[in-house]
């Protein structure tokens, strides 16, 4: 297979997008589209390399194929795990929760499914998983296996059927295979895209659409489809020769720039939550990458017939070097960034992570990876080539560090522990309330009436409220706080009605919800207002999600809430969102949604709710 230098530039652009997205997700909200560029390129290169082999030998050596992929992927992955585990020992213990499962998912190349099973909500993202970025390897590995086996079956069955003479046989075998692969790639890509469409139309969990092999692998098949279409070098040379050099240069430059611009535009415009990403963002990026591949081959063909001078050797050397260290950088940058962010600002953490990743990537590419194959060439380090010492040594180091990490790993993150404690304390408070009610039964009727006139506030919240719960109980007289993880608006109307029925609903009913959004939030809220019991006052506290923008559900829900005060005289809206925007220090060092562990914010939040209650007193009861 001929080495096409333009591909290194495509890979560089894709990596840049991904890494900038990881470091500054607000700046480049859909930088993850770089993954799809890599997938198209990968599908293209894998299929093309198999084609070249079949054309040359008339056969496909699958064992050698897997061996090559293994040495490319596995050793560096293991190094990344060892180094990440080592650094995580000195960081926030929350990162170690479920670390055994995360390592297993990474080594088993199922991080994407692990994330689908555990993630997909703000709560799960509160502590970022250190190996989250390895989800992408699952798509690659599953594709390698399925595609290689599929092609192997095709090659073997074709070999039985094609009976031409030796010199023509290989060509015939290749042509037959190419046609079959063309159809298969088209069908698989189409199925993948349709599954994605069905998922987004049916409003499936976005994490599933984003991570699943079924919905996210289709760019790989678009790549292999392109490999079938663009396989003939001769055709490209003829095409290049048919243009005037100046015209060709203009065409290549214009075409590549437009395609790159399209991807960049989408990367700035779209986001993880935006449904447009899944309708057409990924597909358009894949097609744009196809265009870039086309121009890279055309450019390469032109340099071959000397229409163009070759790339300047400086750029050439840089892209080739980058190609070698890009995969290790990808593996190292994320965990190092996440761990560094515990101590430094995002910009400093990004710089530290990048610098350390480049150093480690050089070690991985020039010493570690060659050692696995006994190919270390640095004179003083050639002892590493002895596999019988190297492998048990690596296994030993890995086992020791894994055992230490597992030993140190807590069962729950601090947030999960707070949630658990909160739920148990709530149950306990309910039980004590019931005892008080039974005690009231011993009183005479006059005294009982005094208790029946329940003042105070019933507060409903989601995981955001778990932190300040105790502050709220202290600040707001006669209050009860019911905070639950993942709570959405759909369940709240019933809770209010139940409390009313049991006589536990207090004068002020405060809803601090809307962080976990659904498409029917407005309907649920209208329902709550319509069914709201008489003689009570309803208060909404607007949610704040500092990571989003106006396209985010919770931001839109806040806009809606702000209109309610004018419509209903028994509804008061406290705009915590505005307070949070004015006081970024309240969310310093947090995920910009929850503000756990900052007493200043707990106090401000509790006082804000108290102020809103005071304001509600001036308004009506229902």
């Amino acid at each position, binding site marked *: 297979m001929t080495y096409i230098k333009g591909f290194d530039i495509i890979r560089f652009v894709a990596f840049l997008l991904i890494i900038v997205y990881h470091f500054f997700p607000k700046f480049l909200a859909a930088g993850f589209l770089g993954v799809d560029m890599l997938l198209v390129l990968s599908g293209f290169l894998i299929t093309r390399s198999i084609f070249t082999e079949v054309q040359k030998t008339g056969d496909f050596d699958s064992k050698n194929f897997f061996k090559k992929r293994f040495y490319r992927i596995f050793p560096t992955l293991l190094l990344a795990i060892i180094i990440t585990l080592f650094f995580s020992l000195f960081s926030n213990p929350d990162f170690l929760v479920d670390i055994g499962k995360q390592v297993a998912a990474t080594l088993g190349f199922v991080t994407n499914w692990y994330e689908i099973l555990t993630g997909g909500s703000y709560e799960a993202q509160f502590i970022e998983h250190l190996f989250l970025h390895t989800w992408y390897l699952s798509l690659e590995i599953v594709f390698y296996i399925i595609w290689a086996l599929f092609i192997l079956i095709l090659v073997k069955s074709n070999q039985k059927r094609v009976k031409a003479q030796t010199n023509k046989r290989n060509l015939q075998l290749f042509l037959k295979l190419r046609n079959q692969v063309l159809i298969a790639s088209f069908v698989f890509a189409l199925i993948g895209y349709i599954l994605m469409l069905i998922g987004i139309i049916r409003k499936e969990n976005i994490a599933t659409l984003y991570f699943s092999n079924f919905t996210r692998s289709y760019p790989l098949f678009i790549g292999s489809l392109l490999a079938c279409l663009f396989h003939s070098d001769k055709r490209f040379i003829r095409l290049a020769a048919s243009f005037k050099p100046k015209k060709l240069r203009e065409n290549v430059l214009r075409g590549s720039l437009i395609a790159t611009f399209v991807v960049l535009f989408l990367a700035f415009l779209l986001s993880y939550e935006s449904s447009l990403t899944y309708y057409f963002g990924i597909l358009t990026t894949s097609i744009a990458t196809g265009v870039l591949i086309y121009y890279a081959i055309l450019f390469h063909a032109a340099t071959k017939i000397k229409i163009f001078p070759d790339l300047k050797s400086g750029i050439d050397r840089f892209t080739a070097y980058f190609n070698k260290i890009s995969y290790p950088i990808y593996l190292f940058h994320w965990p190092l960034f996440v761990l560094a962010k515990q101590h430094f600002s995002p910009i400093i953490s990004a710089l530290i992570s990048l610098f350390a990743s480049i150093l480690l990537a050089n070690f991985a590419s020039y010493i570690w990876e060659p050692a696995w194959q006994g190919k270390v060439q640095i004179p003083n380090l050639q002892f590493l080539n002895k596999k019988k010492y190297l492998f048990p040594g690596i296994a030993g180091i890995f086992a020791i560090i894994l055992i230490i990490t597992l030993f140190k790993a807590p069962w729950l993150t601090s947030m*999960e522990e707070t949630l658990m404690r909160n739920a148990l304390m709530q*149950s*306990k408070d309910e039980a004590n309330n019931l005892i008080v009610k039974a005690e009231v039964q*011993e009183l005479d009727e006059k005294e009982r009436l005094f208790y029946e006139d329940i003042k105070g506030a019933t507060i409903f919240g989601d995981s955001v409220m778990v932190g300040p719960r105790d502050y709220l109980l202290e600040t707001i007289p006669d209050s009860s706080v019911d905070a639950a993880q993942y709570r959405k608006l759909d369940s709240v109307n019933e809770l209010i009605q139940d409390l009313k029925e049991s006589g536990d609903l207090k004068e002020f009913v405060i809803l601090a919800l809307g962080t976990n959004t659904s498409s029917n939030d407005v309907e649920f809220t209208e329902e709550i207002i319509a069914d709201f019991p008489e003689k009570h006052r309803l208060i909404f506290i607007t949610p704040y999600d500092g990571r989003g923008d106006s396209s985010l559900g919770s931001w839109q829900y806040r806009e809606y809430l702000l209109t309610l005060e004018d419509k209903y005289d028994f509804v008061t809206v406290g705009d915590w969102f505005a307070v949070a925007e004015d006081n970024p220090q309240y969310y310093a060092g947090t995920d910009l949604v929850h503000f756990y562990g900052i007493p200043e914010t707990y106090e401000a939040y509790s006082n804000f709710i108290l102020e809103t209650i005071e304001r509600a007193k001036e308004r009506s009861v229902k």
Partner: protein
Amino acid sequence: MKKFVNNIWLKINSIPNFKYYLFLFIWIICIIFALLPSGKRNVKNLSIDDLEYTGEIKGKLIEGEGKIVFPDGEIYEGNFKDNKFEGEGIFINSQNQKIEGNFETGKAGTNSIVEIEPGKSWQLGPDNTWINKSSSIVENKNLEETDPDSSDPSQNISEESDPDEMSDSSENETEGAE
């Protein structure tokens, strides 16, 4: 040492495709371990901040039978679900007052019996009505009098008589305090 390593290395290499099978085996184990949901297990004296739990847990939730001790000595022993009291259980607060009953998502439901003090009990009836059960607890009161050291609420749980055994002489039926 060198010879020993050599021998083992040779033996391993002599098994046909040993490395591939080993790799495949580890791979499958990793997948199963990563994706299989964690089942039920028992823990003893598990600290949840300032609370202490002994009993069953499922995944990352308190679920099944267990006993939780709160910082002020209050105790719940019984069934849990989703980190809340759920199903049959007994709650005893710091003043030795007690609820025996069926809990639903953290709340005591109908037919739960609240003992305010020895001899004074109320049962939560349907529609938030209360049924006075005081006279029926005399038997229970006597039991407690025989044990003067019952100030520790955790010891009371085992001495509790079954609510079904109590007589149904409900004298008073009053409307609940809604």
